[in-house]
């Protein structure tokens, strides 16, 4: 079996423990009772059936493509377009997707309800749902408030059992350990959730990790106590070896995944596209990826990378548009794991990508409105556009520096009115906690401002 060999070698390269490999197996799955539905709305045609992984604890099949419900389509008023949501969910389920991941915080708090409505139209055994205890705000740290949030999830999702429950984004905050304890330990919420798992109202208990590695290490060290059923981590071909470069408090995805494998904990993958950065890459990189496989989208490479390790239970993708859903279905029906050579190729691409310093903003506008009038996504997107189109002067000594300088500055004024540009950021940090990509927006504003000043003043850099 050629595939198996590749996978084994791949895992060897990942440096994962061999014991864990046995725990999670790899299998194809067919949606129960659905038959092999074909994708009829045009676009990419999946070659076969959705690849599924098996949850080692419950034995349930989980589709390798998980539906991230943080970015449901909205109408012109900014409200969720339920009709569209239903269509997307129907299409996804019809093509083998059975894992839906939401949170009380998503879509201005409206995601759980919309997801619940869409899912309730399908038999309960055709999908599993994941939600989170998203008690970020200090006002929700109390036991009562957290409990209310937990109970409300059942109501919104119209379920009596939450299949996957997560402590949401542990490791965030300036004093991450303290914040973790305030959110889950001091108020007894973690003990409560453990008892809920005991009682069967929670199928699997895990946590999603962002930020401070100390919290991740601590929770894994206490695995014997908590018996995590899964852990949600950020994994993609850039974070694999460069996670710490991107976020110095965190660590490489290779480390995170390895730690989970050592303990036989299945990994759920978020940010397979690094906040959209791996689908909207620099023209040079896009050309290289496309040349290798004309029939594959740029994003498909990132999805194949994220799904290839066998310890991965599912890969989450927040799909707003049918085109994204189709493309991902095509990638994962079935998954064609990366060959060793392809994997090395992507790691080279990761290094190339880092040379183009785009900011992982995908224009979700959660940070807006800025109280001081800045057009934050406008500024970041202009910067990224110049990076991706190869129009960002990397040094004042570039041969086309004068032209690039002119284009950057004129384009900046065109994209963002002067009064809304980066130099007006006062660093109030109001936006930081809203950014799902964890971009340190004030720091980026300063970096861009400094860059603009370099250009305007003709300073050498």
């Amino acid at each position, binding site marked *: 079996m050629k595939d198996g060999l590749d996978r084994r070698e791949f895992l060897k390269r990942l440096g994962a423990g061999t014991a864990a490999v046995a725990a999670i197996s790899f299998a194809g799955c067919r949606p129960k009772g659905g038959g092999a539905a074909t994708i009829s709305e045009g676009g990419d045609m999946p070659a076969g059936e959705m690849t599924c992984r098996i949850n080692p604890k419950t034995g349930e099949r989980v589709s390798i493509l998980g539906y991230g419900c943080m970015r449901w389509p909205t109408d012109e008023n900014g409200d969720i377009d339920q009709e569209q949501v239903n269509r997307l969910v129907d299409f996804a389920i019809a093509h083998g997707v059975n894992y839906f991941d939401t949170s009380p915080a998503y879509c201005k708090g409206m995601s759980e309800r919309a997801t619940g409505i869409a899912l309730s139209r399908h038999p309960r055994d055709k999908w599993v749902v994941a939600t989170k205890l998203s008690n970020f705000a200090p006002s929700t740290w109390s036991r009562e408030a957290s409990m209310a949030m937990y109970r409300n999830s059942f109501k919104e999702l119209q379920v009596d059992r939450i299949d996957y429950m997560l402590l949401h984004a542990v490791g965030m905050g300036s004093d991450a350990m303290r914040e973790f304890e305030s959110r889950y330990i001091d108020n007894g919420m973690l003990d409560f959730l453990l008892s809920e798992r005991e009682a069967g109202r929670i199928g699997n208990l895990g946590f999603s990790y962002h930020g401070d590695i100390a919290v991740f290490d601590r929770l894994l060290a206490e695995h014997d106590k908590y018996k995590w059923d899964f852990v949600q981590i950020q994994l993609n071909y850039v974070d694999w070896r460069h996670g710490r470069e991107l976020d110095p408090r965190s660590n490489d995805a290779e480390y995170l995944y390895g730690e989970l494998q050592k303990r036989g904990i299945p990994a759920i993958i978020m940010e397979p596209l690094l906040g959209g950065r791996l689908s909207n890459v620099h023209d040079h990189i896009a050309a290289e990826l496309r040349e290798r496989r004309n029939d594959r989208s740029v994003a498909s490479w990132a999805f194949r990378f994220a799904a290839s390790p066998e310890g991965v239970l599912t890969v989450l993708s927040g799909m707003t548009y049918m085109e994204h859903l189709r493309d991902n279905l095509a990638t994962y029906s079935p998954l064609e794991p990366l060959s060793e050579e392809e994997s090395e190729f992507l790691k080279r691409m990761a290094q190339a990508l880092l040379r183009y310093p785009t900011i992982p903003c995908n224009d979700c506008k959660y940070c807006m*409105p*800025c*109280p001081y*009038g800045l057009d934050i996504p406008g500024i970041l997107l202009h910067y990224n556009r110049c990076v991706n189109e190869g129009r960002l002067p990397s040094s004042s000594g570039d041969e086309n520096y004068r032209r690039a300088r002119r284009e950057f500055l004129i384009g900046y004024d065109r994209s963002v009115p002067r009064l809304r540009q980066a130099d007006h950021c006062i660093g*109030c940090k109001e936006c930081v906690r809203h950014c799902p990509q964890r971009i340190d927006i004030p720091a980026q504003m300063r970096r861009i401002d400094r860059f603009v000043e370099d250009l*305007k003043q003709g300073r050498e850099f």
Partner: protein
Amino acid sequence: MFLYVDRGISVIEMIYYLCRGVCSASTYGVSPPEENQYRMLRKIRIAAAVVCFALVTLLFLDFTGTAHAWFGWLAKIQLLPAVLAVNAAVVAALALVTLLLGRVYCSVICPLGVMQDIAARLGRRVRKNRYGYSPERRWLRWGMLALFVILLAVGLSSLAALVAPYSAYGRIASTLLAPVWAWGNNALAYMAERADSYAFYTVDVWVKSWATLGVAVATLVVVGVLAWRNGRTWCNTVCPVGTVLGLLSRFSLLRPVIDTSKCNGCGLCARNCKSACIDSKTRTIDYSRCVVCMDCIDKCNKGAISYVLRRKGAAQSAGRSPEPADASRRNFLTGVGLLVATGAVKAQEKVVDGGLVAITDKKAPSRVTPIVPAGARSLRHLTQHCTGCQLCVSVCPNGVLRPSDDLTTLMQPRMSYERGYCRPECTKCSEVCPTGAIRAVTRGEKSSTQIGHAVLVMKNCLPASEDVSCGNCARHCPAGAITMIAQSGRRDAPKIPSVNVERCIGCGACESLCPARPFSAIYVEGHEQHRTI
């Protein structure tokens, strides 16, 4: 030909060829080919005037500063600016040229003069042969010149500047033409943006001073109407530069002369003389008012007028009996009465879209001492030298400079930071100033000149008023003059700025980038006397 006025050799060559032509004409008598040669002179004058006028106008329109690199000298050879800048070489050259050729300055170099010629040309289309001789209004001319000198001497140069020809034209070009130019540019920028081109970029169009706009409109109306009806009335009654040059041109070496043997006294020349200086009855020309436009040479169908060397003993001065005010003077006085500001529609601000907070426009604080650019040295130096031509205001890329509305310094540049601040890399105003009111400074000199100092208005400062941590002023201070310090008695409250006035240069980065609106929490007070760090 006066394009070459700053290049000695060319001028000398030019004069040589002219003299040769003239001498041969006077030696051999007038023959048809040489008559054509004189007619050529008018064409040369018109061509040179058009080129000069277009380029000087371009100086006021071109906000990129490209034109200044090539043609900036055209502003610096204007007589009054050269005098104020104590540019002896230019003043001497202009005097010499006038002594040799007459007031060609007025018909070629002076943009206000050329503007009047354009208005007069349009007037002649409506009614031909519309001018006539009028005697010199000597008392008015000399009175205006005396008043002008007195105003300059007592430091009221802003009032004197109202009649200074080059700066009067500058105000017209920069307040009335430049917006049209900018709108045209913005239309191109709009198209360029859609064509993904970076050839054009949008610029702000705004009324920098209603008073100056009013003055410009009034000047345009008065001068334009006078020129339409009577040609060069302004130049020969009001303009101090015209009066001074008239003094010299009385004795000019070359001059138009009426050959009485050929003249039949038809008066066609007088009826086409914009300067009203040809008395066809006595067949004499008043050379103090003649701007050597050569129109008379062209008009005379007897070939009786030629541009020749002055002959000794030929008394050809004009009649001098002062007469009561005639139509042209009345026109002039009514014109002055029209000095009223006109209203126009205020530039509309772009409507913001839903996801953005509305931004209140900044308002200028009342400053005890106005701020003027580095290079101006002191308020006094600027006031004494500036003629309010608006060249600096036109080229300021940051929306900092605008004309003063204060009566004693009307139209002179002032700085304010509601739209931007005096950026460290820019020294444009000092580069273009023709009068030396803003002396040329390097970037280094500019960044070490204290033109003012920042003052904190605690009640507006966000860390103090709203407990928000900020520090945008400190972050953007190019001089590193702002330190963030704890609020007294409130150790854990966000920090507030503290200005080191020894380091502050008054560039206004702090004021411009302060988030407090409409009044910034930190603003700049000017220095009467600039200091160097």
